[in-house]
């Protein structure tokens, strides 16, 4: 219609010459031009309003799109979880596989001057399976955490299952308190709190073997208190009824109590340290010595110890290189009867070790460990006979960890426990699968 109007105007202009335009014609033309102008104005305002509408709807669309992304993300997040857990599974299940090949140059099963029980010494020649371990751990509910570790061992062709740890922990006590009940690694010393597969050497240092049979594990109660200070200060006490060496566990009253304390902190961002003191008091009843156990000890055993660890990593970044120096000293006084003779013995032992990760995945370490006994001359011919040498060892190790979950280790030990020097070589693998292990300090 509009197009026809403009075409008509153009035709009129073309046909009629300017001289032919009369007054009427001019008036007519003016009217037509006015009509055209109002027509175009209407069309422009129509277009403008349509444009505004389109803009509004695109804004709506954009907002809708953003909302859709948000909703999609939220549902993806809801599906994903995001909790820090030992594993996506509940409980966290982990297993540790250990095996080794050893050339022990004789080896030994007891330490001269010490009446001990259980498996001591560097173990068997050739290939042997170490302690395979299965661990379950999880929060039980909002108040308790539980942990169970089973150790599987071969004993003369039979497989034995031992409960190594079975404890519950109250995690929501007020005032910085943490309570643990069950079978637990005692809080004394430094190394005692670690699983053996986390050790830096293939066996425990001599004082741990002589005084605890490798590790002091208690059945009972532990209470820890953490001070509300910037300096780490932790105090703990335990009551135990254990029947494992060095305890003998009989009767309704606890046969052991433990006190321990740790302080620690950082120096700058590259250094951190911890210092500890511990005391263990045991009431021992008929603790047999050695395999045949012809004579047994009954009486009071009091052990005190001091431990320290210092760790260095450049700017606290242990991934590339780090160094760890640790040492512990224990002394023990036992008072009572050995067989039918009165016994009042003093023993002590210590170790010092350094481990250096010199490049990612590779570590090298050195350890010296030794024990001394002063039991008196009346025990000649028994397990308590003081040796005329000092049982001591020097060990060098090199290990390679392809990932955080696997480790291969070569260890050489110059062993003078029995009095003659043995050159021992151990090649070991330690692998963990399942739940992510804890990075304990």
């Amino acid at each position, binding site marked *: 219609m509009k197009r026809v109007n403009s075409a008509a105007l153009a035709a009129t202009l073309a046909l009629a010459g300017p001289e032919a335009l009369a007054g009427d014609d001019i008036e007519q033309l003016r009217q037509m031009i006015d009509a055209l102008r109002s027509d175009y104005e209407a069309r422009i305002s129509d277009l403008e309003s349509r444009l505004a509408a389109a803009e509004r709807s695109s804004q709506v669309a954009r907002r809708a799109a953003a909302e859709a992304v948000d909703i999609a993300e939220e549902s993806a997040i809801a599906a994903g979880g*995001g909790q*820090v*857990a030992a594993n996506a599974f509940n409980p966290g299940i982990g297993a540790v596989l250990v095996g080794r090949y050893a050339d022990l140059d004789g080896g030994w099963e007891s330490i001269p001057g010490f009446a001990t029980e259980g498996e001591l010494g560097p173990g068997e020649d050739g290939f042997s399976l170490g302690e395979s371990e299965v661990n379950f751990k999880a929060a039980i509910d909002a108040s308790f955490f539980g942990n169970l570790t089973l150790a599987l061992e071969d004993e003369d062709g039979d497989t034995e299952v031992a409960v190594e740890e079975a404890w519950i922990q109250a*995690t929501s006590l007020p005032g910085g308190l*943490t309570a643990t009940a069950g079978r637990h690694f005692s809080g004394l010393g430094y190394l005692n709190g670690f699983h053996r597969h986390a050790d830096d050497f293939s066996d425990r240092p001599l004082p741990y073997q002589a005084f605890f049979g490798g590790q002091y594990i208690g059945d009972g109660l532990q209470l820890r208190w953490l001070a509300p200070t910037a300096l780490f200060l932790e105090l703990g006490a335990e009551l135990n009824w254990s029947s494992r060496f060095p305890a003998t566990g009989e009767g309704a009253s606890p046969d052991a109590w433990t006190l321990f304390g740790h302080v620690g902190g950082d120096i700058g961002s590259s250094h951190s340290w911890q210092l500890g003191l511990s005391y263990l008091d045991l009431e021992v009843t008929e603790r047999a010595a050695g395999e045949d156990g012809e004579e047994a000890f009954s009486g009071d055993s009091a052990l005190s110890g001091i431990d320290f660890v210092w760790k260095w990593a450049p700017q606290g970044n242990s991934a590339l290189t780090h160094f760890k120096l640790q040492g512990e000293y224990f002394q023990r006084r036992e008072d009572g009867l050995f067989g039918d003779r009165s016994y009042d013995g003093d023993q002590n032992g210590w170790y010092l070790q350094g481990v250096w990760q010199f490049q990612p*995945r590779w570590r090298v370490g050195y350890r010296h460990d030794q024990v001394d006994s002063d039991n008196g001359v009346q025990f000649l011919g028994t397990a308590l006979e003081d040796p005329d040498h000092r049982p001591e060892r020097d060990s060098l190790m090199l290990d390679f960890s392809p990932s955080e*979950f696997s480790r291969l280790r070569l260890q050489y030990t110059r062993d003078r426990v029995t009095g003659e020097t043995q050159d021992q070589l151990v090649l070991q693998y330690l692998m963990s699968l399942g739940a992510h292990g804890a990075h304990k*300090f």
Partner: protein
Amino acid sequence: MKRWILLFMLACAAGNARALEVFACEPEWAALVRELGGDAVSVQAATTAFQDPHRLQARPSLIARARQAQLLVCTGAELEVGWLPLLLRRAGNARIQPGMPGHFLAAEFVRRLEIPQRLDRSQGDVHPQGNPHLHLQPRNVARVARQLGERMAQVDGANATVYRQRTEQFLARWDSAVAGWESRAAALAGTRVVAHHRSFSYLADWLGLDVVATLETRPGVPPSGAHLASLLEQLTPAPPAAIILTPYENEKPARWLSERLQVPVLHLPFTVGGDEASVDLVSLYEQHLVLLEQLGS
């Protein structure tokens, strides 16, 4: 006697007026807490930009700090799995245990990338809940800020209005900063880079960077010589623009490859404190863009 009671009451009042104690696992969350809390909070980060948050140990100083905290702010998604559960058990602090309002995990509130289809450690140290290095995507920061501000208001009701107000202010500032960065991002899209670990996946996702390879064979497994050699062969026909690194990653493998490919090693700050210019979240992002833009020029 009266004087003692008065002193005791004063001490209690002083105790109430004390700042909200926050334990942050990583510097980026400490920076966010500072933005949202201002003077009402006292926050320290457990890690610095120079420490790998995967590899930390539950060391005594951290346990002592966690003991005092009223709010714990961490990434989650298993980034801290090696040390945080142990730290929480040792800290004797019921307020920050999982499930409590004082236990805040950023990963719960954002969409995570690289959620593995198959869970198997032969794939390296994979995280079942996806890539946890999620702070280098501005949308994630905004989402976490909104949730964290609300959580701080919940834990410390006395200062709730301060937290809510500061959160709104931060988000407004953040949105305008993000608009600025995104207008510059088009020039960076498609830039090909090699990363050490999958630390920059979210940044790459946001800016459209193309991470053509990682130096680690698998996540958490240090680069091996054989893998580097194969990367060299693979990348020689079309070298990337740069090899990007966080401050805590080993520079050696990157240097080796960079010399042979004739491409630069680019140290990105990764988190707050990673270089001198990155003092808060805004300057951290700005610094990443500036450093990446310098590659092109």
